[in-house]
Each structure stands twice: as structure tokens, then as C-alpha cells.
């Protein structure tokens, strides 16, 4: 998988002017809070439309303001795990997991429900409501939900930042399993050196809305 991202946009007082390309399996976007990491992946997901920019996966443009291309977020097939899990409160864990599957084109539904629930150890949680989950369980369910939509790329926006240290240690092995047992390309946003060193093979450094370096 190769990903090209270029975005220039003003968001209030903040200017995002970032550009990078990667073909790593796990690419970390690393930088302090307020560096523009979340805004940048929101551009990738199609949740923010930049003034100028380009997003291309394997050479296919999902956004190209110069050529007037802007594919809607729901058609981009880019999975997104948010900082807060954003599970649907009116659905059970099972219904949350199956939500995106229904919208994926039939020929592209490669994710298997059993494999994903095994990988993330979600079996015992399937019948629960989202209120009866701990923070770590919520994030695992959110990762499962994104995977089961069979995306071409998975964005993880500081998935551990809302968890305490013990819960972080509980979820981390699942992220490593995700890295080692699936072929899903991942963009992992973090401000934690420890997480980034443990998970990523390409690191994009960001500060004040700009990319300041890339390390393979």
C-alpha cells in the first residue's frame, strides 16, 4: 500500500500545511498535542475538506482539489478509530461490529467476523451494551468495528490516550496482534514515544501544522 497526503488549510488561527508519502505497513504520525495530527488524518478520512490538497491510496486519488476530485467520506473506505471510541450507544457490541459490514461492497468484504472477534478477543462482549464496557474494551470494539467495514486503510487516532496506564497495557498487545496478524495498512497517530517505537516502522514527525521529518 502506498499513501500520499498533501493538505493546506486554515482552521481558525491554526494553519495546516503538511505533506508526506509512505508505503510502510504501520506509519506513525508523531508530534505534540496541537501539532495538527488529528486534522491531517481527518483530511485523509474526508471529514475535513482542505483548501488545497491531495490524498491518494495506491495511486488512486480520493481527494485532489486541483482536479476537482473529492470522494465523500462514506465512499472512501478508510477505517477510523477515534480517541474516544464513538461506539453507537443504541446498539449492542455485536450490532456495532456489524454496522460497517453492511455498507461495504460485497466483493470487498474480506474481513471475517470470527477472525476479527478472535483477534481482539471480543467474543465474551458481543451481547453487551456499550455502557457495560470498560475503556479498553470500548477501544477494542471500536477497532473491530472499523476492521469489519473492510477498509483499505485504518486510521488510529491516539487510541490509547483516553485510557489509564493499566488499560493501555491491556490494549497494546491487541494493537501488536493487529500489526502482526493482518495485512491492514495502518496510520497511527500518537504523542507517545513509547507507543510509536513499539508499533511503527515509519515515523512522520509533525509540529505546528507542518511535517518536520520522516524516519523509516
Amino acid at each position, binding site marked *: 500500500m502506498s499513501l500520499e497526503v498533501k493538505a493546506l488549510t486554515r482552521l481558525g488561527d491554526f494553519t495546516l500545511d503538511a505533506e508526506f508519502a509512505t508505503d510502510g505497513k504501520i506509519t506513525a504520525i508523531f508530534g505534540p498535542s496541537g501539532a495538527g495530527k488529528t486534522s491531517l488524518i481527518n483530511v485523509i478520512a474526508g*471529514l475535513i475538506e482542505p483548501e488545497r490538497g491531495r490524498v491518494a491510496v495506491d495511486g488512486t486519488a480520493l481527494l485532489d482539489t486541483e482536479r476537482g476530485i473529492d470522494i465523500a467520506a*462514506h465512499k472512501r473506505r478508510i477505517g*477510523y478509530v477515534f480517541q474516544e471510541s*464513538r461506539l*453507537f450507544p*443504541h446498539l449492542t457490541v455485536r450490532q456495532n461490529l456489524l454496522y460497517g459490514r453492511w*455498507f461495504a461492497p460485497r466483493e470487498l468484504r474480506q474481513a471475517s467476523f470470527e477472525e476479527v472477534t478472535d483477534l481482539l478477543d471480543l467474543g465474551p462482549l458481543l451481547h453487551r451494551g456499550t*455502557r457495560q464496557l470498560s475503556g479498553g474494551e470500548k477501544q477494542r470494539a471500536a477497532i473491530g468495528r472499523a476492521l469489519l467495514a473492510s477498509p483499505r486503510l485504518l486510521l488510529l487516532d491516539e487510541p490509547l490516550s483516553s485510557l489509564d496506564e493499566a488499560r493501555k497495557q491491556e490494549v497494546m498487545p491487541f494493537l501488536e496482534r493487529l500489526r502482526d496478524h493482518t495485512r491492514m495498512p495502518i496510520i497511527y497517530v500518537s504523542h507517545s514515544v513509547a507507543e510509536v517505537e513499539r508499533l511503527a516502522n515509519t515515523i512522520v514527525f509533525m509540529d505546528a501544522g507542518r511535517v518536520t521529518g520522516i524516519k523509516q
Partner: protein
Amino acid sequence: MPTLTPEELTAIKLSLRVAAVATLFALPFGVAIALVLARTRFYGRALLNALVLLPLVLPPVVTGYVLLLLFGKQGPIGRWLYDSFGIVLAFRWTGAALACAIMGFPLLVRAIQLAIEAVDTRLEQAASTLGASRSWVFLTVTLPLIAPGIIAGAILCFARAMGEFGATITFVSNIPGETQTLPTLIYTFTQVPGGNAGAFRLTLISLAISLGAILAAEGIAQAVGRRVRGQ
């Protein structure tokens, strides 16, 4: 339990039918307008909001008279409805339903609008990254989350419609069996000698229906609310 005369029973049944039809008719418009008011910013939004709330502050007799001017046989909309579809609203129970729908509309829209404003739009964003188009997001995320507000609004609208008097009597009069609803029959009873017993019986029934509606609205809204919050 006091026994009811056939005249009273007819008025009660008619009131229930008028209120039910009015609520069902107003519901889709109520959801659409609440969505527009809660989610969009456009020139003239304040005016739309004021128009929706207007029946709440206008004397009901004025609302009824405006309806008569517009929907009466000689009114522009009334004549068009009659010429095109053969529909007559003035002095018919359907006209009473229209009057009640308009009088209940502000309560309906307000309840739904508040529910929509309380929806966490980040959940809708999450749904779109999972492949749901805007209409699917609305049907599978927004609508279930605002269901308690819709139910509460519908029951308030229904209760308001059950009690509507001024606009109804002005627009469709007080014709036994056609437009004589519970409140207009109570009014009739108070105008004739010896009507006190009837007025009193219907007042009790009116109280029971209104109280029941409010209790049901609260109960259902809470139960559905717990469900959509995942408790």
C-alpha cells in the same frame, strides 16, 4: 364511572380520531422542520422558527380564522384542493384535524429539535467513516437517538390536539357527529340549561386523557431514552 350519552361518546371518539390523524399528519413535517432548524443556518431561519412558534402565541381564534380564509371553499388553497382533488376541509372533521395539527405543531417541533441538538454529531461522523451515506446515517444513527424526543413531541401534540377549542370552532364550527369534539361539546353544555352534569362528566374524561397522555409521554420517552443510551 358515570354513564355517557351517545352524543358524548361520539364527541369523545371524534376527538380521539381528530387528534390521532392530526399527530400522524404533523409528524413527518415536524421531523423535517426540526432538522432544518437544528442543523442548518440560512437567511430567514429566524422567520421560519417564528412561523412555527406562532400558533403558540396567537389567539387560537385568529389561527382558526386564517385557516378559514386560506382553506375555506372560497379561500385560495381550499378552492384549489376542491377543484383538484375534491377535498373539502371547512366544516369537516378533516378540517378539525388540520386545525389541531397546526396548534400542536410548535410543541412537536420543539421537542424534536431539542432531541436533535442533543445528538453527538461525532457519532454521525463515525458512521460515515463506516460507509453510511447521509440518509443511512440519519436512519440508523440520528433517528434512533432522537426517538425519545419524537415520541414525547408526538404525545404532547396529541394532547394539545385533544384540547383544541378556539381554532377548531372558528374553522369548522361545532357540528354534532362531524366537528363536535370533546371541548366544543363541553362548551355547548355550558351554554344550555341543565348541561352541567354532561360538562362535568366530559371534564373528568378530558382530565383523564390529558393526564394519561403526559404520563405515557414521560414513561415511554424515559424507557426509549434508556435504551438508546445503551443502559
